[in-house]
């Protein structure tokens, strides 16, 4: 073979329309995992304002929680966390070799449950914030 033709990336994410359940689960799990670590670092950074004293901490949190954007982002975080947890449980089952034939069903179930939990939590998450 003198030469060969490499088709490059078209064949990977260019094919997203053809992804199956397992592939989507992986993409979402990856995305949510990265968001969660990102949040973990931010979270500790914000909380460590407590090191500069009670007033600084309470002030920072109150200001942040008073912002609608922050509250909306928190709903997003909940969605991300719930999906990661539910799909994480799905993955743990897959690792144990349980229900592999139904892994697509359990992925759809994770999605639906995530949606339901998030919708149900919106009032609580947005409570006490003024526009």
């Amino acid at each position, binding site marked *: 073979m003198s030469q060969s033709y490499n088709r490059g990336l078209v064949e990977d994410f260019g094919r997203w329309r053809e992804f199956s359940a397992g592939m989507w689960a992986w993409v979402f799990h990856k995305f949510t995992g990265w968001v969660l670590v990102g949040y973990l670092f931010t979270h500790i950074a914000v909380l460590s304002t407590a090191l500069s004293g009670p007033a600084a901490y309470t002030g920072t949190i109150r200001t942040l929680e008073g912002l609608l954007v922050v509250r909306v982002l928190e709903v997003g975080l909940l969605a991300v966390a719930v999906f990661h947890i539910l799909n994480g449980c799905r993955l743990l089952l897959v690792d144990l070799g349980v229900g592999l034939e139904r892994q697509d069903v359990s992925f759809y179930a994770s999605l639906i449950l995530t949606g339901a939990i998030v919708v149900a939590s919106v009032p609580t998450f947005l409570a*006490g914030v003024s526009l």
Partner: protein
Amino acid sequence: MSERYSSFEPGGRRWLWQRVTAAFLVVVLAFHFFLLHFVHHADEVTFAMSAGRMETLSYYSLMVLFLLTATFHGVNGVYNALVNTGLSGRQRTAVKWTLVVASVVLIVQGIRTANAWAGISLV
């Protein structure tokens, strides 16, 4: 054929710990969300309330363990994702140590914060 695989580090240990921490995190993360958004509300957070919780040894140790496992799980997940893409050699070593340093900073900062609430002063 075996020499094609440069690394003999069996990824199995990290794989297992990723699952073990995941199983622990399911419970603790759900508890954490529930406690701080449903039992207490986001707009009522105060230093005193956080301090009140942290002064209990069981809560304090649970939160430190939460921090440790979440950091391991999250950072190891990121590292793993990069290894999956075939990251190797010097680049890989650099990424690895950057992640280790970031984790240590995160854990130290987290514990200092928890200590501030719990009223523990080390230095």
